[in-house]
């Protein structure tokens, strides 16, 4: 590990959290480096404001992919099917539509979950510090890798806010 270690503070209430965040910001850290871990979404606070996500667009892409998959599945089967049907259609556009529709939705749903898991860094990348006290309502604020130069300063600031975790 590099010398850069994380430093966090456990705040017992959201107002303190805001103070902690402000402290970090004042230390010159960018908002994107600041990590706020809580047991509930803290949407009201400034630090919760993140830029717009691209998730819906990805989902639309997934839907299009799913739909294309569905349409290809039905239409290619039609092509590749060796079944003799005595002149009856193997498929029709109307019923193609239904399967295509369902697979479009499935594509969208699966994309949503995948995009969520990836962007929320679940399952895959899991090295964030944590403290079980978060689930008792504490909020953990800090940065994952603080330059040594700043660590002491931050620690100093955090001391007033709450318990420090490294």
């Amino acid at each position, binding site marked *: 590990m590099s010398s850069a270690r994380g430093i966090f503070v456990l705040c017992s209430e*959201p107002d303190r959290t805001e103070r902690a965040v402000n402290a970090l910001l004042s230390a010159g850290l960018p908002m994107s480096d600041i*990590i*706020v*871990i*809580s*047991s*509930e*979404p*803290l*949407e*009201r606070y400034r*630090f*919760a404001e*993140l830029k717009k*996500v691209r*998730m*819906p667009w990805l*989902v639309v892409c997934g839907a299009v992919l799913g739909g294309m998959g569905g349409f290809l*599945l*039905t239409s290619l*089967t039609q092509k*590749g*099917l*060796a*079944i003799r049907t005595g002149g009856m*259609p*193997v*498929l*029709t556009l109307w*019923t*193609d539509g*239904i*399967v295509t*529709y*369902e*697979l479009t*939705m*499935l594509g*969208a*749903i*699966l994309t*949503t*979950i995948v*995009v*969520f*898991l990836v*962007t*929320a*860094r*679940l*399952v895959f990348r*899991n090295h*964030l510090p*944590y403290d*079980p006290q*978060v*689930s*008792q*309502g504490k909020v953990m604020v800090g940065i994952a890798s603080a330059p040594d130069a700043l660590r002491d300063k931050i620690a100093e600031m955090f001391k007033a806010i709450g318990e420090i975790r490294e």
Partner: protein
Amino acid sequence: MAQTAEQIQRDLLRPVLDPSRRAKPVIAGLALLVLAGFSAWMYQMYTGIGVAGIRRPVFWGFYITNFVFWIGISHAGTLISAILRLSNATWRRPITRCAEVITVFALLIGAMFPLIHLGRPWLAFWLAPYPNQRGLWPNYRSPLLWDFFAINTYLIGSLIFLLLPLIPDCALLRDNVTGWRNKLYSLLSLGWRGTQKQWHRLEAAMHIMAILIIPVAVSVHTIVSWDFAMTPVPMWHSTIFAPYFVAGAIFSGIAALIIAMVFLRSSLHLEEYLRPECFDNLGKLLLVMSLLWFYFLFAERLTTWYGNARPEIAVFWLTQRGPYRHLFWVMVGCNFVLPFPLLAIKKLRTIAGTFLASVAVVIGMWIERYLIIVPSLSHKFLPYAWGTYRPTWVEITITAATFCGMALLYLLFSEVVPVVSIWELKAGLREPVR
């Protein structure tokens, strides 16, 4: 809302963390009945589908009734919760998860029935399109195949819809237990930390899912209705069927939700959370659906009666005055006559009132599905081939077992995870009062 976050957490985690409750005999009893149903199914599988009461011309009976019924019930959840989420109704917070769980379990149970009713269930995998040496594919023209796709999509969707908001609560549990349960919840929480990014993504994903799940749910019951409407069977071949079924599904779904909530409320002491206004609101919804259902019923019956086409009118009179008349009027009573005053009069729209109405609606809607399937099939076009249907003990056992199964799964679920979303309630605390 007077609770604090700690209180919420304590109250809602109690059922999970404190297993020393009296549910065990209930669970054992339910499990026994489920086992009986499973045995009946195995007996049927071993001896042949003939142990069921189906016969010519009523080739579909209890099983498909159950299938439609349970798929209908499954619309409780996701649809309601999605609509309420999207409309950002605050009173949704304590009930969304109850509803979503119903969806998943009802769907699982419902999806079992097409398998149970197959003549050769061991070949059910032929419904899936996969490359094979025979060069055979399923027939995409068959509504049953649409069902296959729709139900699978819906099942995956509603499972995700249920599990996504469960992740933070699993993380919460993870921090509150030790030993193997800790490992289990660690796994279930997928490494959830609770960073603001995660929260944000979660809410975004939930929002998208809520949007996605509504058209899927509508399509599922539409397609279930098309299982019937696509065939030239008297009173089935009807354009009204799709909205009729969707409305009926939501109708029975809300009723199921109310019933589940009443049980949860009393057994898990969630009086503080599942508050009367929830029931009042759901009761209003149920009232709307009851009116809608009656409207559809009237439209369907009136056009059939007015059209007076020979095969259709035969089925019409069969249900109206023939051997199915008792069932028919019980259905109307359960779905409209009884719930309407209970739900329309504000004084009666209490927890008990909505509960009573809901029980009636669930019974009535089951009968409705039965009356859609059996009379039509028993009186098709050629009177010589008319017939009757009577279920056997196998069908009855399996049907009863699925109700028990639902209760059992629900009960077990409520013991494993908080059945009311803790983080959503907590978040609700901070919500600016509008």
